[in-house]
C-alpha cells in the first residue's frame, strides 16, 4: 500500500472525524451541565441533514438561499432540542438521572420513527460545496472536505469563546461544576441546561448539514452517528467539548484507515472497538482528569 493511499484514508478520516467531533461536543456539553447522556443527539444530526435537504430544495439555488435554508434548519433543530428539554422537565419530581436518560432514548426512538415517515427510507443528499479539489501529499482533498474542516475549526473557536469569554459561558461552566453554588449567586441551573441542550442541537444539526452532501443521510443513521459522537466524547474526556472534537478526529482516522486497509463492512465496528479499548485503557479520555471519574 503506497503512501498516497494512506494519506487519502487519513484525510478522509479527518474530515468525517471533524463531524463526529461536533456530535461529540454536543454530547459533552449536555453531559457536563446535567450528567445526562442524551441519546437523541444522533437524531439531531439526522434531522439537520434531512431538513437541510428539504429546505435547500424548497428555497431554490444560489448561495444566499442555501445559507438561509441552512440557517432555518439549524434554528429548527435548536428548537427541537429545547423542546426535548421541555419534555424532560415534565418528569416527576425526584426522578433520577436514569429516567432522564431513558426519556432522551424514548424521544430518539420517536424522532427516528418520525423521520422515517417524513423522509422515507432512502438515502438523501444535496449539493452544497463547490466542485474541485486540492492534492496534499498525494491525497485528493475536495473543497467540501476543506469547508467541513474550516467550519469545524471556526465552531470550535466560537464555542471556546462562548464558554470562556462570555458571562453566559462562565455561568454555564459554574453550573456544570456546582449547580447548588451557582444557584446561590443567581444563576438558574435549569436555564443553563436548556442552553446546553440548544447548543448540542446546534452542534448536531451542523454536523448533519456538513456530512450529508458528501456521505448522504438516511432516517436511521442517528444510532451509529450517536455511537461515534459518544466515542469521540469519551476519547476527549466526556466533559470537555474541545477534547471531543479532537477525539472525533482520532476516531475518524482510525475508521478511515480500517475501512481503507481492512474492510468496509466493518466500518462501524472500528469505533465500537475503539470505545471498548479507550474505556479499558484510559477511561478518563485523553484530556479528562481523574477526578471526573469519581463523580
Amino acid at each position: 500500500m503506497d503512501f498516497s493511499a494512506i494519506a487519502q484514508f487519513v484525510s478522509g478520516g479527518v474530515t468525517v472525524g471533524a463531524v463526529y467531533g461536533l456530535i461529540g461536543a454536543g454530547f459533552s456539553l449536555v453531559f457536563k451541565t446535567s450528567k445526562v447522556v442524551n441519546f437523541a443527539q444522533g437524531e439531531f444530526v439526522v434531522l439537520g441533514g434531512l431538513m437541510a435537504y428539504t429546505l435547500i430544495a424548497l428555497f431554490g439555488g444560489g448561495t444566499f438561499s442555501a445559507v438561509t435554508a441552512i440557517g432555518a434548519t439549524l434554528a429548527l433543530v435548536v428548537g427541537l432540542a429545547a423542546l426535548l428539554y421541555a419534555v424532560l422537565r415534565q418528569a416527576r419530581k425526584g426522578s433520577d438521572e436514569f429516567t432522564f436518560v431513558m426519556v432522551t432514548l424514548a424521544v430518539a426512538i420517536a424522532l427516528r420513527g418520525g423521520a422515517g415517515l417524513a423522509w422515507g427510507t432512502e438515502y438523501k443528499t444535496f449539493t452544497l460545496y463547490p466542485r474541485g479539489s486540492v492534492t496534499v501529499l498525494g491525497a485528493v482533498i475536495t473543497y467540501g472536505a476543506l469547508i467541513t474542516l474550516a467550519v469545524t475549526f471556526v465552531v470550535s473557536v466560537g464555542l471556546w469563546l462562548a464558554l470562556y469569554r462570555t458571562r453566559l459561558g462562565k455561568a454555564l461552566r459554574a453550573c456544570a461544576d456546582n449547580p447548588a453554588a451557582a444557584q446561590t449567586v443567581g444563576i438558574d441551573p435549569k436555564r443553563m441546561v436548556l442552553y446546553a441542550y440548544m447548543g448540542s442541537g446546534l452542534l448536531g444539526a451542523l454536523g448533519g448539514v456538513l456530512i450529508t452532501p458528501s456521505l448522504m443521510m438516511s432516517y436511521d443513521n442517528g444510532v451509529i452517528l450517536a455511537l461515534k459522537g459518544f466515542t469521540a466524547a469519551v476519547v476527549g474526556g466526556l466533559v470537555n467539548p474541545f477534547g471531543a472534537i479532537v477525539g472525533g478526529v482520532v476516531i475518524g482516522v482510525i475508521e478511515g484507515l480500517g475501512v481503507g486497509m481492512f474492510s468496509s463492512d466493518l466500518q462501524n465496528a472500528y469505533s465500537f472497538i475503539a470505545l471498548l479499548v479507550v474505556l479499558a485503557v484510559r477511561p478518563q479520555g485523553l484530556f479528562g482528569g481523574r477526578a471526573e471519574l469519581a463523580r
Partner: protein
Amino acid sequence: MTLQTLTSRPRALLWLPVLLLGVAPLLWGDAYQLSVWTFILLGLIVVLGLDVLLGFGGQLSLGHGVFVAVGAYSTALLTTKADWSGWLAMPFGMAVAALLALIVGIPTLRLRGYYLAMATLGFPVVLDGVLRHASAWTGGSSGVAGVPRLAFGSFVLKDPAQMYWFVFVVVCVVFLITEQLVRSRFGLALKAVHADEAAASARGIDVARTKVLAFMFSAVLASLSGSLYAHYVQFVAPDTFGISYSIMLIVMLVVGGAGRLWGAVIGTVGMMWLPEMLRFTSTWEPVVYGVTLAIVLLFAPNGIAGLARRRATRSMPAGERTTKADTTLALKQEGCGDGPLLTLEGVSKQFGGVRAVSSLSYKVAPGRVQAIIGPNGAGKSTLLALIAGTLPPSTGEIRLGARRIDALPAHSRARLGIGRTFQHTRLIPGLTVLENVVIGGHAVAADSAAQSEALAAALLTRLDLAGVADAYPSEINHFQRRLTEIAAALAGRPRVLLLDEPGAGLSSLEIGQLVEMLLSLRNDGVSVVLVDHVMSLVMASAQEILVLEHGILIAQGEPTDVVRNEHVRAAYLGRSTLAEAEAQRSPASLRTPQEQAE
C-alpha cells in the same frame, strides 16, 4: 426464618401471569394465535434476563438483540453446516453470548454511568457489518435456511403446538431460576449495587463483578431464546435482530415495570399481543413506541407493575422477631495475635497541590476504641477513606494484621475485616432495615442465608432496632438510620470498625446511647476507629485519641492527656473547653459542646 420467607410475597400470585401464558393459546385455538404466543414466550425469555440486568441491577443494554442473534446463528450454523445436534449448539451459543458479554461488560461496567448503554446501542449495527463481512458462512443478508426442528431422540417437535408447550416449559424454568436469582445473595448484592455502588463495596460486594455477571446472565437467556427461535422458525436473517428489536425489548420491560418479574410478563404480553390483536401494523409503530415509552417514564416511571401498590414484605409481626442469638460470640475475633491490628506507615494522600494526609504512621491495637479528632479539613475522612480503600494512598503502607492491604479494592478490604459507616448514612433505599443488615453480612461469604439473617436479626435486637426491622430506611429517624448502618457494618464481622462522624446531628440522649453501644462493642472485642466532632462522644468512649491538623498527626494519647495538650487546644478544642472535656470523661454528665472549630 430464611431469606426466602423474608422477601417472599405469595408465590401463587407471582406465578399467575406465567401460568396464564400457558392457557392463553387454548382460548384462541387457531394456528395464528399459537405462533403469536410462541413469539411472546420467546420474547419473555429475553425480557426476564433484561429485567435482572436493568430492573434489579440498573444497567442498560440497548443491543440485546445481538445476543439473541448469537444464539440463533450458533444454532442455525452449527446444525446446518456442521451437523451438530441442536442440544449441543444451544449451550454453545449461550457460552459465546456469555463470553461476548464478558468482553463488552468488563471495560464498560467497571465504570459508573451509561457506557454499557452507549456501547450496546451500536451493537446491532456492528453485528450487521460482521454478518455481511463473513457472508461466506452467514449467508449475509439472505441468512441461513433449513434449520432442523428440535427433537428428543427420534421424537421431533413437528407440530407447532408441541413447540409451543416446549417453549412454555422453558419459560417456566427460566422464570423459576430468575425468581430464585433475584432473591439470592447475588440478587441482594445486585440491588445494593444498583442503589449505591460505594456503600455496596463497603459491605464487601465486588461491584464490577456483580454487574458483569448480571449482564452475562441476561446475555445467556437472550442466546437461549435465539436458539429456540432458530429451531421454531427454521430460518435466521440479520434483519430480525436489528436495532428496533433491541429497543422493543427495552420498551416492553419499562412499560411493564422493570424491577418486578411480573412487570416483565405484563410488558411483553401487552406490547406483543395487543398490537397483533388490534391488527396494528403501521409505519407509525416506532413513533408510537417512542411516545409510549416517554409517557410511561414521565408519568409512571415504574411501569404498569409499579401502579400496583407495593406489597409490604412483612412476613411476620416485628415483635416476634426477638431472636435470642448471641451476637457476642459472632463478633468476637479470634487469632488476632499480640501485634497491632491495623498499621499505617508513612501514609500520604495528595489531591493536586494539597496534602490531605501527610506521611502518617500509627497503629491500632485490638479491642480498643480509638478516636480521631481535628478541625474541618484536617484529613480525618480522607484517612478513613484510605483505610477502607475508597481512595488509594499516594504513598505509604497499610497493613491489617500482617497483611498489606493498601493496593486492594474496597470490597476486598471489607471482606478481610474492615467495616465502615459513612459520614452521610448510606443505606439501600429499596431494602428494609433487616435486609440492609443482611447485605452487611454479605462480606462473610461462608454464612448461609439463614445464618446471615439470624445474625442480622440479633444485631437489630441488640441495637434496639427490632421494632423497625421491616421498615424501609425512609421510614425511620436519623438515629435509627445511623444505628442500622452500624449494624450493617457489624454484620460483616469486622476486625476494625471505622465510624465516620456517627454523632453528627444526634441529640445528647442519643449520644449517650451511642456511647453505651460503643463501650459494649469494645467489651466484645470489636476495635473501633471513630472520627467525630462531638467531644462528649469521643471523651466518653475512646481510650486513645489522635489529633490531626492539616493532615499531620499533632497529638496522640490518653483522652485526658490529649485535651491538656497545648497544641491541641490551640488547633482545635479552644482553651475554655478543657474543664468541659474532662467532665465528659464520666458518662454520667454527657453534653454536646459547641463545636468550636467550625
